[in-house]
């Protein structure tokens, strides 16, 4: 018993190592399920899918560390995708349409932030509202139509290969990871984020500009969602109102799996990246093994529950 406790304690200390172990075990299991899984081509291609979730998960990590949540990221992705596609179809040059899309993403995030901070409302109920609002706007404005006559160069964001093998968006993701990691672990802003999550009131009385930090977080997440939306739209080469449906589940699962406490105060970028990789491996492996997509949703739902349960279990054990 004491040995088991000691092992558990050591596991707690290096959560990233545990996640890495899980990832490796998962990869071995998947390569046994399908011979196609452990090929360089497949692994690199997997990154096409996880970059979108990963970008959004970076922002979500910081939001969850402050004790908040953003349920609207999937809907915001649809809104940006539609903004890019339909402003282009309406005659705006594509580069400007992309900029416009990013502005819409930031504006949507800012809207969340303003609503949450000015009215002192829980992010859960605000983003539940904007979850419906953004998706409804994307759906209503387009009248459920789609745009897909983009110029060939638009494919660069989501379908290009660098050096003939590495998907282009992987570089965008790596840069984004580095930037967000630096912000969270090496700047005053990053300390503020943890301080708000640990005790918002104490942070406020210690002079942390709580509202401004939150506004920056939700807007920044909006920008990351915007980037993900451009990559997504380029990858599927279509702008539709129902893009990104249900993606918030992947994003939140990845962050929570990565060890961020849903109660705020703890979480790391490294953990989130591993969480994203685990979910991508699971999804890709299940596809290759011929498991229908509806079952993947089931697996993901259960995985989310197990991850949170283990998180809180370990946390309580430590206390």
């Amino acid at each position, binding site marked *: 018993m004491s040995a088991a406790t000691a092992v558990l304690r050591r596991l707690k200390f290096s959560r990233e190592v545990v996640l890495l172990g899980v990832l490796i075990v998962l990869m071995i299991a998947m390569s046994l399920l399908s011979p196609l899984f452990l090929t360089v081509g497949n692994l690199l291609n997997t990154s096409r899918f996880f970059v979108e979730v990963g970008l959004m998960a970076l922002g979500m990590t910081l939001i969850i560390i402050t004790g908040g949540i953003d349920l609207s990221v999937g809907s915001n992705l649809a809104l940006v995708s539609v903004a890019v596609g339909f402003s282009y179809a309406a005659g705006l040059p594509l580069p400007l349409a992309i900029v416009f899309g990013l502005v819409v993403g930031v504006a949507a995030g800012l809207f969340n932030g303003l*609503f949450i901070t000015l*009215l002192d409302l829980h992010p859960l109920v605000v983003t539940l509202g904007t979850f*419906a609002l953004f998706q*409804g706007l994307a759906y209503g404005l*387009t009248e459920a139509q789609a745009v897909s006559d983009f110029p060939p160069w638009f494919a660069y964001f989501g379908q290009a290969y660098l050096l003939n093998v590495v998907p282009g968006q992987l570089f965008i993701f790596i840069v984004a990871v580095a930037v967000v990691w630096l912000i969270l672990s090496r700047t005053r802003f990053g300390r503020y984020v943890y301080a708000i999550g640990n005790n918002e009131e104490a942070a406020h009385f210690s002079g942390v500009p709580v509202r401004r930090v939150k506004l920056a977080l939700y807007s920044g997440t909006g920008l990351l969602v915007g980037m993900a939306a451009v990559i997504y739209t380029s990858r599927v080469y279509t702008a539709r109102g129902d893009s990104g449906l249900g993606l918030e589940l992947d994003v*939140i699962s990845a962050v929570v799996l990565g060890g961020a406490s849903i109660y705020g105060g703890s979480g790391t970028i490294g953990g989130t990246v591993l969480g994203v990789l685990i979910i991508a491996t699971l999804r890709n492996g299940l596809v290759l093994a011929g498991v229908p997509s*509806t079952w993947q949703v089931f697996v993901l739902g259960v995985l989310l529950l197990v991850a949170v349960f283990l998180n809180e279990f370990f946390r309580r054990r430590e206390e």
Partner: protein
Amino acid sequence: MSEVRAPTPAEERGSSLRDTFRRFMLRPEAPALVFLAVLALAFSLSSDKFLSGPNLESILVSVAVLGTIALAVNQVILCGEIDISTGSMLGLCAVAAGAVAISTGGLILPLLTGVAVGALCGAINGLLVTLGRIPSIIVTLGMLYALRGVILLVTGGTWITGIPDSTTVVGTGTVLGVGYPVIILFVLFLVMELVSRHSTWGRNVFAVGGNRRAARFAGLPIDRTRFLAFVLVGVFVGIASIIYMGRAGSVQTNTGTGLELQVVAAVVIGGTSISGGRGSALAALTGAVLIGVILNGLILLGVPGTWQQAVLGALILLAVATDVLRRRLVGDKA
């Protein structure tokens, strides 16, 4: 607002009116009721079909499923928790009840099946929240997806059709021109008002949601109160699944998709505070009817159906913002 000196008689008359108004505005469902009245007036002026008996009855029938579930989710939200798994839960209950209805017909057995499946799902939610100590938003988000997976596993993706008339009568039958769904909804509403006001559990719900620390120090059974609220959602979803089946005549694998959002919207639009401890069964009912009136009004005004989701989202935001502003206006700090 905090006057100490005794009011003069003249002031008393004036202030008693003002007090009545203030007391009304302090009721959680007051803004929704006012909004409902204004909206009904606007719709009846712009479309002469709106205020007809059949249209009003059809609005109430159309919100029966939503309202029934909202009455139970209202209790969960009053506890300071949330349940967004009801859409998938309704689907699963309807699938189970539909399968039983096909083989046995009648009402009792399908109803019991739906309620049992719902209660089981609710119990899982409740156990994960109370014993597992996982936040309810995460538990029910996970269950929303997991249960949808179970539906597809059980049905293999096929519809359940050919539900006998002896079961669907619950959706089509009427008493004195009033549909069964409407009667069920109002009976459940009355039950929830009574439970809320006069049962120990009903009072505990407010205490647990209003101030959990105080409730713990007072020795109230916090976990049991929350657990029962989640089970209640399951039971009411089970009842709603029979109404749904009776109205639709078949069960599809996507039954109830997106309903969880409408339910939460109904509860908070009605005036129950999302942070718990404040609200009423009347609020949940008002919210559900309000959503029904708005969706119906949009159709009468010829607004395309693609806008429904956006309207719903805007309403949630409007409702929570109004709640905050109203509390600041009447100086209610709670």
